């Protein structure tokens, strides 16, 4: 057991630091929660940042060389992530593409698709999104209704997706559709790569409960997709989607990264606010801070165990679901402790513009209004518990009455 870098890892880390310093002028630097005034300008800056990082060999670190990656280890990838955070470089604009869409294209795409998409994806020449959830199918993803009907060499797509992160800036997406409603729901699905600029694709931002717009609705009206853009065989879409979802659970919380604000930032806030509280309130506030810290540390170190297992050649298994589940709970404890430390300000929403910067008070209220979504996105807490219960603990599945019936007779279409 050893938490320090190996000599090889230390050398790699030093190289990454040098590269980040060398290219500093070409990279966006933002504090957590900080946003540029002009979103369009920020998008361009983030695309440029990713291109610079990719050209420096810092994107797709663990991807195979044949796919444009660096053929490095997951430990190296984790080091790059840590050093980017240390240098205050925000998340890659194409994080959905790199974390989920890319691995899906690699696993199920044709050599032509690999050639066409992967290098551009790594350089953020194309930004990608993931078109899975629909208004009537969230947790029950396999009940989705967006249809694709074969027409000559094309498929014609109609339907609606929702909660699509980055769709408003995306060039391509992976799109899960129903191609055979006569088969049971999991068996009638097919995955495609869709050109987000194709005629008939309409993207509308969705305003979430906190007031911001981080997601989109996407409408498909007679959108034509060439058969050559199919990912996997017709009817195999569920298997393809599982590749995406497995990668998503590792990307979101699997490595033990904090899903909300960090315990370090809570410590800074508490250091500032605690001395002003009456003694009996200090005792309670310290309990809240301590509980949040313990939960965050437990999740952080569990993530290190998972990273160790993956780096020793293990595949990301259903256990990764526990990281997101516990990470969400920890993030809520951290946010709640932080908001309560704000005192009377806690009953007000963050003022516009407050919430930027490393220690802006408004980010606590913003984070509080963000976390209910984290408990839903990428697998609700309840779905994750089912996955762990059934696939890790071996408990019997609950009855799924529509599982073996043809989709169009299952009741899921109501």
């Amino acid at each position: 057991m050893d938490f320090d870098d190996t000599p090889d890892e230390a050398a790699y880390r030093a190289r990454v630091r040098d590269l980040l310093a060398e290219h500093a002028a070409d990279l966006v630097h933002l504090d957590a929660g900080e946003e540029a005034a002009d979103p369009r300008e920020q998008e361009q800056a983030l695309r440029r940042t990713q291109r610079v990082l990719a050209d420096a060999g810092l994107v797709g670190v663990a991807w195979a060389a044949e796919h444009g990656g660096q053929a490095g280890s997951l430990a190296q990838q984790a080091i790059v992530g840590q050093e980017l955070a240390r240098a205050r470089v925000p998340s890659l604009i194409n994080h959905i593409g790199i974390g989920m869409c890319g691995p899906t294209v690699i696993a199920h795409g044709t050599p032509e698709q690999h050639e066409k998409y992967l290098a551009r994806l790594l350089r953020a020449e194309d930004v990608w999104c993931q078109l899975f959830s629909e208004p009537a199918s969230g947790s029950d993803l396999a009940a989705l209704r967006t249809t694709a009907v074969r027409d000559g060499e094309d498929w014609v797509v109609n339907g609606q997706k929702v909660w699509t992160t980055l769709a408003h800036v995306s060039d391509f997406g992976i799109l899960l559709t129903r191609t055979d409603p006569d088969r049971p729901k999991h068996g009638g699905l097919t995955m495609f790569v869709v050109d987000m600029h194709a005629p008939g694709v309409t993207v509308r931002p969705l305003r979430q409960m906190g007031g911001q717009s981080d997601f989109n609705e996407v409408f498909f009206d007679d959108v034509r997709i060439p058969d050559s853009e199919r990912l996997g065989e017709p009817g195999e879409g569920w298997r393809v989607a599982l590749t995406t979802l497995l990668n998503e659970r590792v990307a979101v919380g699997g490595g033990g990264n904090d899903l909300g604000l960090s315990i370090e930032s809570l410590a800074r806030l508490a250091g500032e606010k605690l001395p002003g509280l009456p003694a009996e309130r200090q005792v309670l506030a310290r309990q809240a801070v301590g509980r949040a810290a313990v939960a965050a540390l437990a999740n952080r170190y569990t993530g290190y165990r998972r990273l160790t297992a993956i780096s020793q050649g293990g595949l990301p298994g259903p256990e990764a679901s526990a990281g997101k589940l516990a990470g969400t709970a920890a993030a809520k404890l951290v946010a709640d402790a932080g908001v309560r430390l704000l005192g009377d300000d806690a009953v007000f929403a963050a003022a516009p513009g407050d919430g930027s910067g490393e220690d802006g008070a408004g980010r606590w209220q913003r984070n509080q209004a963000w976390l209910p979504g984290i408990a839903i996105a990428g697998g609700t807490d309840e779905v994750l518990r089912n996955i762990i219960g059934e696939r890790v603990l071996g408990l019997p599945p609950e009855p799924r009455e529509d599982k073996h019936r043809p989709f169009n007779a299952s009741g899921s279409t109501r």
Partner: protein
Amino acid sequence: MNFDLDQDQLDAAAGAKQFFGGQASPAQARAALEDGPVAPGRKALADIGFTGITVAESAGGAGGSLLDLAVVAEQAGAVLAGPSLVTAARAAVLLADQPELAAALADGSRAFCVVDGSTPALDAVGADTFLALVDGALVVGGGDVVTGRPMDATRGLGVVTLTDPQVLVPDAARLWARARDVALVALAAEDLGTAGKAVEVGVAYAKERHAFGRAIGSYQAVKHSLVDAWVGVEQLRSLVWWAAWAADAAPDELPLAAAAAKAFAAETLERAAETCIQVHGGIGFTWEHDAHLYWRRAKVDRLLLGDAAEHTDVVAGLVLAGALA
């Protein structure tokens, strides 16, 4: 980074599991409540070498790390073994510069108990050699033990009045603090084993028991409570390993890691044990079922060496003082 046990530790865990499986059981913990002996008992633990895991080789121990001890302690916890390896781990730190007493700990020729003032001390029952901090000095002596009716007889709790104390180390506050942190880790490791077992027993029953025509584990209400208990156990395992590793490899991190592990252990074991009873329904509330024995361990251990509130406050204090910076 490599956050996993090595092959020797995995082998040690497998060996310990076999030993404890043959030497102790919830049935014996139940019998101990009705005046049966605590199993496996001091002699068996010393004979297999477990009281000397962290005692120096020069004093007849194995010279192992706290992590080596923690993987064994987890297996002890799984079968509710007694006396506790907490006492062995803590005494080994206190006796680091006392070769004769350390040798007596390793070979079992003395029965140690470590005393924190007037609070009931772990493994006081049957002890003949007591260690305590008196006016900043580490002392050793005999003791008069007053016990109550045990909640968990395997813990051997009793209030100790020292007799004839002799000073071993005059200025021992730091040594005492480290020994106490080490004890917290060992206790969390035993709790990890108990909590893991309680979840395992609950899961097995949820697969087998049918109600309304289906295995009860298929119902989300039952399944999700078992999952939450299991997630807690896996998160506790991470804190225990980190804290045990830190004791030898990063001593500056030990106070934070030990307090976090103990605070988390208290609540994790309690939830696991209560979930185990709840999943079993009526049978889980009976004397002959094992569920209450895990529950007894939970209700006692959560209060030993400071409760969750105390250790949560320690964590807060350290985090506020920049322990993570």
